[in-house]
């Protein structure tokens, strides 16, 4: 898969007319920033589209990545077990970017997803009672909290499936985007960075960008 750096260099090459100049006017760090922004928007739009075509569950698997080694931590102040997500998130309705959480070898028992602040409701209902192998979780930003998990499980590893964002990736990381969308992303980033030129009818002598 294409890495962030490879894509940025290709865009630089394209913008400089196919031959890199020593005095290249676009810094590669700026290209990274634009890839982050445009990439996350692209992911959110495409995933949303696939959800609209089916339902909340209908996210194409191309966009989903599985992390099978995510550490459980303990928040002493709040007295609750939590984990830090292995990737930044893209914004989707109903936290649909977070697909599933379970033990690394427990794919057949997915832990139920709750919403932040719903603990009071589930603590009063039978379905919210703790089960021995199932720990409901709710997201808060880039962290997931486990309402009923005993703190003795701190330090164990779990598996998280999610739609990862481009933001936060290192330059050597492959972009979490299906192959056919890399061209789309490259074109959008390139268009964003292309120098603005005034149309011919607005030509005046003071504007150095006119053709």
């Amino acid at each position, binding site marked *: 898969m294409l890495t962030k750096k490879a894509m940025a260099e290709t865009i630089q090459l394209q913008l400089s007319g196919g031959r890199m100049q020593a005095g290249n006017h676009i810094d590669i760090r700026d290209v990274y920033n634009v890839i982050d922004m445009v990439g996350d928007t692209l992911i959110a739009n495409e995933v949303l589209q696939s959800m609209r075509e*089916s*339902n*909340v*569950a*209908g996210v194409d698997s191309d966009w989903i990545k599985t992390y099978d080694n995510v550490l459980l931590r*303990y928040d*002493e102040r709040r*007295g609750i077990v939590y984990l830090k997500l292995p990737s930044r998130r893209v914004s989707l309705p*109903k*936290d*649909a970017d977070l*697909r*599933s*959480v379970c033990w690394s070898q427990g794919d057949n028992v*997915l*832990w*139920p*997803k*709750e919403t932040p602040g719903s*603990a009071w409701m*589930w*603590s009063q*209902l*039978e*379905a*919210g*009672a*703790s*089960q021995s192998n199932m720990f*409901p979780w709710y997201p808060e930003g880039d962290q997931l909290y486990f*309402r*009923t998990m*005993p*703190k*003795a499980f*701190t*330090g164990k590893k779990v598996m998280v499936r999610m739609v990862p964002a481009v933001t936060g990736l290192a330059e050597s990381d492959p972009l979490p985007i299906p192959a056919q969308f890399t061209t789309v992303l490259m074109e959008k980033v390139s268009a964003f960075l292309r120098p603005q030129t005034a149309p011919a009818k607005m030509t005046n002598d003071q504007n150095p960008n006119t053709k």
Partner: protein
Amino acid sequence: MKNLNNVVALVAMDREDDSASGYQRYLQYAIHSYKNDLQFRINPAVEVLYATPNDVGIVPMPVDMEKYTKIAVLILGEYYTLTFNPDMPINNRLDSCGDPILDTNNGTCTCNDDGYATLYPWASHWRAGNYVGEMYSKGGGINKAGYYNVDYKNRQFQFSSVPFSEVVIEYISNKVSAQSVIDDAAVDVVRYAVHYQLALFDKKMTQADKERLQRQYLQSAYDYRVMKTLLTPDEFMDIIYRSSSSGVKR
């Protein structure tokens, strides 16, 4: 036989929802239907749980617990009822080494018979296959035997000043959980009940679809009742023979 988890999986499949986001909602509606359609609003039962607290004095609540009624601890062959202390901290902090910090005093008690004049009777129950017909415990009020607090958020009990060997908890059970077993014929009743409940509160669903699912649910509930109350051949023959006699035919 199937359990409610199986029905929830069936509903998830019907809705093409492979995520776990709807699990608890489906399960709660399934439990609701189980209580209303299959058990016909069963009376809750009183259960007794024998449990061993962990190193920091915590016992998780049973899944089917609605409300606890009594908590006692076994000391030298006698049960002492503990007293509720809402001000007691819950042991849920760790130090930098990952070891638990004991906010609650966990020393053992020095109780004797002084001041324990009242005896509290317990519900009869079964323990490891043996029937416990009568059981009484002492204690209550300002208590040398120890105290407990209830952590509803994490559904657990916290104990203090008790020897962490065994505690006994009497509680009101709703007798229903994700593992509750139903017969195969009742699967569709619970399944369509969940679909109907979900549809009822879905603002995007059309009235026609809501009514379709309601009809489906009512029909399956009716079919189930008919099937369960239908006369067996034996019962039918009993009725025939009851009204026949070997006397003279007129």
